[in-house]
């Protein structure tokens, strides 16, 4: 599944970044690399963007950005 499909409160682990160019670079710089654990925090009222917890920082992505991150859900920490 992709990161934008991860429901609020759930955890996922990054499998692969399919984004390319500057967006890929930015994701890698933020520490979003394969193996990184991500948690969906909450969505804005319109559902876009969504806030994620990544390595201790809260990062917001629009769904058309978050869908370029492949993840697998994980249960409990």
């Amino acid at each position, binding site marked *: 599944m992709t990161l934008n499909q991860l429901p609020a409160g759930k955890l996922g682990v990054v499998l692969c970044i399919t984004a390319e160019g*500057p967006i890929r*670079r930015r994701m*890698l710089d933020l520490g979003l690399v394969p193996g990184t654990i991500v948690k969906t925090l909450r969505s804005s009222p319109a559902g876009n963007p969504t806030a994620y917890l990544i*390595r*201790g*920082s809260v990062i917001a992505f629009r769904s058309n950005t978050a869908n370029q991150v492949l993840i697998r859900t994980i249960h409990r920490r």
Partner: protein
Amino acid sequence: MDGKQGHSYVVALAGNPNTGKSTVFNGLTGLRQHTGNWPGKTVVQARGHFKYKGQDFVLVDLPGTYSLLANSPEEQVARNFICFEHPAATVIVVDATCLERNLNLVLQVTEITNHVIVCLNLMDEARRHRVFIDVPTLEQELGVPVIPTTARSKQGLAELKEAIHLVSSGKLTPQPVRLRYNPMVEEKIAEILPRLETLPPVYNKRWIALRLIDGDSSILEEMEVKI
């Protein structure tokens, strides 16, 4: 040893946003700074100076960035300064409470230059968060001096000045641990390197080759201006 401006050593101060970089800057220079703009960019530049063991140092506060590669104006300013102005030393201020994310910038800077010092700031907050850092091991893994500081209360700044002095004067040359890329990338680097032979010797050609592989055209534009 290069990196001098008159009789002063030029020292760059880099770091992620919110690492207390400005506090380190003020702590080192005692607020003797003046600000201006980076040429052609609306990015504020602060310079200050300090004296240590009879030697003058000019400290250049680079914009706070997470990376040197994503091409915002701030990142370009920081990257161009470290790559093309070859400061005598570059101090990277990192947040001890959030080391993992900060080490990305350390890696990127050590790919450009050997003359690097890591300033492990916010040690008091890290202690409060029960984060303990094995400084000697970190130093060994990175291959550069790591100086723990709490700039807010001036702790560690004397040690930081000493490290800046040693690295700037060439008494200590850090040997950062360098990444080897996969064979395909290394082959391409080897292919590009001979074609960069004519560049001034102070430029890090391996790093420039890597940016060209990245397809980073801004590095070409910058070199056209410089050469």
